[in-house]
């Protein structure tokens, strides 16, 4: 399959974008998998594991295409297991520690709301390979958002204790949401070519879903102040190394091991 030409001509910015999509799904999927066997109720345990599974499946599609675009023979597995922290392109939000159940759900909701908006926009991407993956993933993510949204409302507008925890989670995670909407020159190039939506353009639709949900959940939307950023260009928090240490252990200790 031929590589769709991008404005810079060598696929570098496209490779960058595909890693961002894949790494967001991979790192959040890994975080969710940490809950397996620990969630407060069996149904929630299964739901978290199912969501993780969807995200890891989407990772295979995004990173598979990333490897193809890069053209150096790297597979999705190579990219997932053999890159170091500075080569990962996920936003800082998804590498935040799980915390309590409320924090995990709030992180999920803030991400899902963005995820669905970008995937819906990518369904009409000028690059059909991207549009195809987005069409597939959007269907799954619609369910993720439906669930996380529902639980934010129920726990936010729940007991005094659940409300307190959800507000705390929101206040802690809010400064990590800004990065989702900050574009760089590569994003601008791809947006101009009709391959991706400009990150800034997604903010309105995200605000609508988040604002409506938080209001229904009786939670107070924090003011937009300082926003943490860096993940999209490989500058991560101290949590990233710990995630990779666990996720990549097998391939690092036993290189090229196969199942």
């Amino acid at each position, binding site marked *: 399959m031929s590589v769709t030409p991008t404005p810079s001509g060598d696929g570098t910015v496209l490779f960058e974008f595909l890693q961002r999509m894949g790494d967001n799904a991979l790192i959040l999927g890994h975080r969710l998998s940490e809950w397996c066997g620990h969630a407060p109720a069996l149904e929630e345990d299964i739901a978290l594991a199912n969501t993780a599974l969807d995200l890891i499946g989407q990772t295979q599609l995004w990173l598979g295409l990333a490897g193809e675009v890069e053209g150096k023979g790297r597979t999705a597995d190579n990219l997932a297991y053999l890159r170091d922290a500075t080569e990962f392109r996920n936003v800082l939000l998804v590498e935040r520690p799980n915390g309590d159940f409320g924090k995990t759900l709030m992180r999920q909701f803030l991400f899902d709301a963005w995820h*669905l908006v970008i995937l819906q926009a990518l369904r009409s991407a000028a690059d059909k390979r991207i549009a195809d993956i987005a069409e597939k993933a959007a269907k799954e993510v619609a369910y993720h958002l439906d669930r996380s949204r529902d639980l934010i409302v129920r726990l936010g507008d729940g007991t005094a204790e659940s409300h307190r925890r959800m507000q705390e989670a929101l206040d802690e995670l809010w400064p990590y949401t800004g990065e989702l909407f900050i574009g760089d020159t590569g994003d601008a190039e791809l947006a101009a070519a009709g391959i991706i939506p400009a990150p800034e353009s997604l903010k309105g639709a995200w605000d609508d879903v988040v604002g409506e949900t938080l209001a229904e959940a009786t939670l107070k939307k924090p003011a937009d102040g300082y926003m943490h950023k860096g993940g999209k260009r490989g500058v991560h928090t101290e949590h990233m190394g710990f995630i990779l240490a666990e996720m990549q252990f097998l391939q690092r200790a036993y290189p090229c091991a196969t199942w």
Partner: protein
Amino acid sequence: MATATLPSTAEIWHWLDEVPDPEIPVISVVDLGIIRAVRWEGETLVVTVTPTYSGCPATAVINLDIEQTLREKGVAKLRFERRLSPAWTTDWISAEGREKLRRYGIAPPVDGAASDAMLRQRSARLSGRSDPIIACPQCGSTKTEKISQFGSTPCKASYRCTDCLEPFDYFKCI
């Protein structure tokens, strides 16, 4: 195998209809709607498969099962192609497949409702109905309630019947 003796694609479809889904063995991969095309390229049989959910672990097993069945039927050269678009939808599950699911105890997906799960859910929420009405596959009662949108496999939700009290799986729309 000489070209003259290659089985027809109709015959291949017939064989594939005997390959059970590994998670829900009462329905075949053809009933499930995941076989998108079968064609001969010279003496190589090309089977085009679409994944149900992108992370469904059964996908690899499904390809193995198809390969084993076709090899037993004498197909020597076989290649799989993965097709993502159009994305698989539960609307592609055959009428026969739906009936088999029901008899097996899994409520089949609501017919034709899968085209946009998000819109459907939103309209349901706004209209005050939280979910479509799912009939219990055991007793047929429509007095059922959702326990969890996520069930024993990625494609299923957990429900329970408030009449016969049996829990059951619902093959959710996507």
